[in-house]
């Protein structure tokens, strides 16, 4: 008798990832769940701005196309989709999905998870004893309150499990922990309880492995990168999950990339703090208990994981306006490319000074010489070309804008052998910064609706 497996395929590591991956995951072989992760740290603020301009927006619009590309797999093969594509407007996202399905003559059951959005209550929360102190700087949120654009609590797996229990075929959340998107299907299918910490932790680890898409299946892999096959057709990862919490990381046959102990280990240490305490709303996972074993070509077995009770807090992601920035570049060619670039930098800074322009930061880098490794880079003064890259940041938009007009004149007025300016004047960008905070679980109320 073969042991039961639940197959969860990762089809999106971030909003902007491969458009083909969701479809390739359902077409490449049998899967039970398709997990899509659309939310980077400041994505919510971008979506919030969209919703302010148009109340029917505020979700990841690419998601509608992604679901459309796999609709037959959902209706005919019973594949389920779990995604945080709802952004700041999960109900609107669900409506768009239902509308798309209706146009294709299909009905769907769509689960919608809300309750993560704290923006409407933010002032009241701060006034009633929840300072939402910045986890990195220790400052209270009140210092930036009038610049806040969005505030969302990272919700765990329970609402997703509830939606699946209520027969949702597509589950749309707003902000939830990325790892919960993978762990929730495992928890639902195998009936893991809230205190089943070792298995919940295993689900979280599986989620951490596949949440960045192909970055665990041969992508961005330093080990033996020259020999990783067929990167143009890289296979996105799949978790084969067992009831006991062990699982195998793999990918569809006939795809490129590689799943090995090396590729999976690189992903495990990615964006890792204290490995013994990987904190999520559902469980604290101990990454020092993870064991990996190659179990055939492109199959890595993962086992031995231990977890413990979660904290009484949820992480909150808050986005706030933090000034403006612009980055401009010019390229200088041999001979003495670096020296010319350095002189251009001095000329530029002197001109900014003479114009009376003030910035919180001016940063100069010499790309091709020292931009990535700084003082560790060694001597490259004879480089064939050097890109001068200068960025400025500050609260005064006009000063940043004025800076963007000081690069082109250097072409005619500055050091020789300069090129690479055809891209035109750099753009001024508003900075939306990230404010991580904690809040008591008791004040966040997730809500699940299933629409059809």
């Amino acid at each position, binding site marked *: 008798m073969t042991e039961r497996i639940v197959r969860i395929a990762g089809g999106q590591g971030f909003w902007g990832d491969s458009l083909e991956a969701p479809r390739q995951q359902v077409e490449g072989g049998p899967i039970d769940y398709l997990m899509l992760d659309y939310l980077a*740290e*400041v994505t919510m603020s971008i979506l919030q701005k969209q919703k302010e301009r148009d109340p029917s927006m505020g979700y990841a619009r690419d998601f509608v196309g992604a679901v459309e590309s796999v609709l037959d797999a959902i209706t005919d093969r019973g594949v389920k989709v779990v995604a945080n594509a709802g952004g700041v407007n999960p109900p609107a996202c669900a409506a768009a999905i239902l509308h798309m399905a209706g146009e294709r003559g299909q009905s769907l059951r769509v689960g919608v998870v809300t309750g993560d959005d704290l923006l409407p209550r933010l002032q009241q929360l701060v006034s009633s004893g929840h300072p939402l102190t910045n986890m*990195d700087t220790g400052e209270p949120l009140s210092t930036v309150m009038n610049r806040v654009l969005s505030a969302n609590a990272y919700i765990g797996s329970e609402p997703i499990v509830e939606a699946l229990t209520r027969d949702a075929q597509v589950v749309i959340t707003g902000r939830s922990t990325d790892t919960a998107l993978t762990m929730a299907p495992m928890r639902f299918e195998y009936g893991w309880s809230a205190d089943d910490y070792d298995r919940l932790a295993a689900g979280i680890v599986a989620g951490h492995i596949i949440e960045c898409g192909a970055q665990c299946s041969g992508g*961005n892999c*330093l*080990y033996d990168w020259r020999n990783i096959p067929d990167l143009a057709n890289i296979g996105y990862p799949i978790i084969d999950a067992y009831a006991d919490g062990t699982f195998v990381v793999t990918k569809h046959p006939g795809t490129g990339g590689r799943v090995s102990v*090396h590729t999976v*280990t*690189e*992903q*495990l*240490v*990615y*964006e*890792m*703090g*204290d*490995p*013994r305490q990987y904190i999520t709303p559902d469980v604290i996972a101990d*990454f*020092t*208990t*993870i*064991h*990996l074993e190659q179990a055939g070509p492109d199959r890595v077995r993962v086992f*031995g994981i231990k977890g413990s009770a979660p904290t009484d807090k949820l992480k909150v992601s808050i986005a706030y306006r*933090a000034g403006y*920035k612009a*980055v401009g570049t010019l390229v200088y060619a041999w001979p003495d490319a670096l020296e010319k670039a350095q002189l251009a930098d001095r000329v530029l800074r002197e001109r900014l000074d003479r114009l009376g322009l003030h910035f919180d*930061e001016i*940063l100069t*880098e010499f*790309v091709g010489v020292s*931009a*990535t*490794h*700084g*003082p*560790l880079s060694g001597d490259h003064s004879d480089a064939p070309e050097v890109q001068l*890259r200068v*960025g*400025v*940041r500050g609260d005064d938009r006009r000063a940043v804008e004025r800076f963007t007009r000081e690069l082109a004149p250097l072409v005619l007025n500055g050091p020789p052998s300069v090129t690479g300016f055809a891209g035109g004047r750099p753009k001024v960008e508003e*900075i*939306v*910064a*990230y404010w*991580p905070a904690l809040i008591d679980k008791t004040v966040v109320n997730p809500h699940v609706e299933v629409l059809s």
Partner: protein
Amino acid sequence: MNTRTVRLVDIAHARSGDKGDTANVGVIALRPEWYPLIERELTRDRVGQHFAGMITLGVDRFVLPNLGAVNFLLHGALGGGGTLSLKTDAQGKVYSTALLRMNLEVPEDEVERLGLPVVSDT
């Protein structure tokens, strides 16, 4: 005691990422038997010195013997990090290979016993 120069990049691979203004670098032994050497040599102070001039705050260090890896948190590494940073590597994605530039001086008998690749004498 005679030592040989061993390049960290020849005995380990690594990946780095970010959390705010902190870069994390996970260094992974290419072979399990090379992990104890890496764990011994890559102390918090050593890594802090290696990155002098590149990071503005301190270093935290954690071990994962189960994976043959050591994880470093490099604070004040990313010019404010995220969208605030003006750096090319605002998200710390190439701090990994910056750490792998480190050279180790290893006793000759250990080099032989572990079969370590060494930098040839000039």
